[in-house]
C-alpha cells in the first residue's frame, strides 16, 4: 500500500499538477493572515473554511493524475479496495501537509494575537482544519475522474460542493445538515469566547457522519465503476 501511495505522490509532484493548488494555498494564507494580528481561534477558523475547496480540488487533481489504464493496472496488482484506499490516503497525506503549513503560517507572519492565551485557539484551530480536511477529501474523491468520468462532471461536483458548503452553511440555512459544518465551525471559533465543548462535539460528530456517508458512497461507486 505504501509503495502505491508513494508512486501516486511522486507522479503528482513530478507532473507539475501539485503546483496550482499549492500557489492557491499560499495566496489564501497570505490574504487571510497578512492584515494584522487576531485571536488564534478566529484566524484558524477562517483559514480552515477557506482551505476547504482548495483541499477538495487538490484531492481531485491528485487522483486524476494517474491515467485510467494505469489505475486499472494497479487494480489487477493490488485489488479494487486497496487501489481506492491508497488514492485517498495519498491525498490525505498531502492535505495534512497543507494544514500543517496553514497552522504555521500565521505564526511566521505574526498574525496571532499573543496577548490572549493562544493555546486553546490553536488546538481548536487544528481541529477546525481536520474537520475541513476530511470532507474535502470526500468531495475531491467523489469529483475524481474514476467517479465522474469526464472533466465537466468533475468540475460541476467540485464547484457545487464548494458553493453549497457556503450557502447551506450560512446562519439560518434551511438544510444545514446536507453539507459538512465547515462554516459552522468557523462561526463557532469567530466568537471571542471559547465555544462550549458540547458545540465542538456536535460539529465533530456531524462531520464524522457526513464523511462516513460520503466515503461509503465513494467506495460503492468505485466498486461498481471500472
Amino acid at each position, binding site marked *: 500500500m505504501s509503495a502505491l501511495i508513494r508512486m501516486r505522490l511522486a507522479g503528482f509532484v*513530478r507532473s507539475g499538477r501539485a503546483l496550482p493548488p499549492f500557489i492557491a494555498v499560499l495566496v489564501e494564507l497570505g490574504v487571510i493572515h497578512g492584515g494584522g494580528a487576531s485571536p488564534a481561534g478566529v484566524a484558524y477558523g477562517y483559514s480552515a473554511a477557506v482551505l476547504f475547496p482548495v483541499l477538495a480540488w487538490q484531492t481531485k487533481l491528485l487522483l486524476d493524475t*494517474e491515467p485510467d489504464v*494505469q489505475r*486499472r493496472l*494497479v487494480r489487477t496488482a*493490488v485489488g479494487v479496495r486497496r487501489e481506492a484506499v491508497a488514492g485517498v490516503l495519498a491525498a490525505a497525506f498531502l492535505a495534512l501537509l497543507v494544514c500543517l503549513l496553514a497552522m504555521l503560517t500565521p505564526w511566521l507572519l505574526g498574525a496571532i494575537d499573543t496577548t490572549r492565551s493562544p493555546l486553546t485557539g490553536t488546538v481548536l484551530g487544528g481541529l477546525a482544519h481536520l474537520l475541513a480536511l476530511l470532507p474535502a477529501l470526500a468531495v475531491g474523491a467523489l469529483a475524481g475522474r474514476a467517479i465522474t468520468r469526464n472533466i465537466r462532471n468533475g468540475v460541476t461536483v467540485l464547484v457545487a460542493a464548494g458553493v453549497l458548503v457556503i450557502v447551506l452553511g450560512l446562519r439560518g440555512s434551511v438544510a444545514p445538515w446536507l453539507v459538512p459544518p465547515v462554516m459552522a465551525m468557523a462561526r463557532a471559533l469567530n466568537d471571542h469566547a471559547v465555544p462550549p465543548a458540547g458545540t465542538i462535539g456536535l460539529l465533530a460528530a456531524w462531520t464524522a457522519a457526513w464523511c462516513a456517508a460520503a466515503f461509503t458512497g465513494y467506495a460503492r461507486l468505485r466498486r461498481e465503476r471500472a
Partner: protein
Amino acid sequence: MRFDQVWFRYGRRQQWTLRAVDATVEPGHTVVVLGRNGAGKSTLLQLAAGVLRPVRGAVHGRPAVVGWVPERFPADQPFTAEQYLRRMAEIRGLSDFAVVDRWIERLLLTEHAGTRLADLSKGTAQKVGLAQALLVPPGLLVLDEPWEGLDAVARTLIPQIVAEVTAAGGMVLVSDHRGEITGLPDAIHWTVAESAVDAAQAPPAHPADEVIVEVAVRRADADRAVAGLRAAGHRVLGVRATAGNTAASWPPATGYAEDGPR
C-alpha cells in the same frame, strides 16, 4: 477459471457488449480470442483480468496473481521505464529489483531504461507494459493485442513467454486480429461476434510433416532473418541466445521454460 453467464455493457442505456458468456479456461492452457474490431475482445479480456466487473453473472476461479497487458500502454506518466517498473515491482510486494533488471534485459529495453515513458516509441512502451505484467509469475496472463508496434524479434518473444507461463501451470488469454496466432500453435480459439463468445473451438492441427530447423544468425541480423522466414511462410517458434545465463530464476533467461523449443 470459468465465465458463468457473464453479461456486460458499459452503461445502462447502452447495448450489451457481451451476453450470457459461458466459457472455461483450464490451467496450463492458452486461449486466443478472435473477432473483428469492436466485437468485444478487449472487454472479454478485461472481464477475465478483473479490470471490469460483470453486470450479470460472475467469473469464478481467477488466480491470485493476474498480469494484464493493455492494448495501449499508459505512457503519460512522469517516470522513466526503469523507475516505472521498479515502482510496479514494489506495488506487487517485491523488494528485490533483480527481476526488473532481468526483464529489462530480456525484452531488449536496456538502452531505454533511463528514457521517460512519454518519450518511448509505441513498441518500446508496449514492452514496458509486457514487463510489468510479468514481474511476478502470473497465474493468469491477459495479453490484449500484444504484437501491436513490436518489431519482429520482440514478436517472437510473445510465444516464448506464453509457453513459459503455461508450462508453470498458468493460463493465458490473448487477443489477436492480425493473424499472429501462428506463433501459438496449441492455443484454443474463442471467437467473439454478435455479443456472444464461441468457446468451443479446438486448436487447428499442424501439418503432419512439419520438422524443426534450428538456425543461428548474428544478433544484428535476427530481425531481418525472422521477417524473411515469416515471409517465406514458415512458423517462427522462438528466438533465444546461444549462450549465457542458465540460472533457474524468473524470468527464464532464454527460450522455453521446461519443454524446450519444439
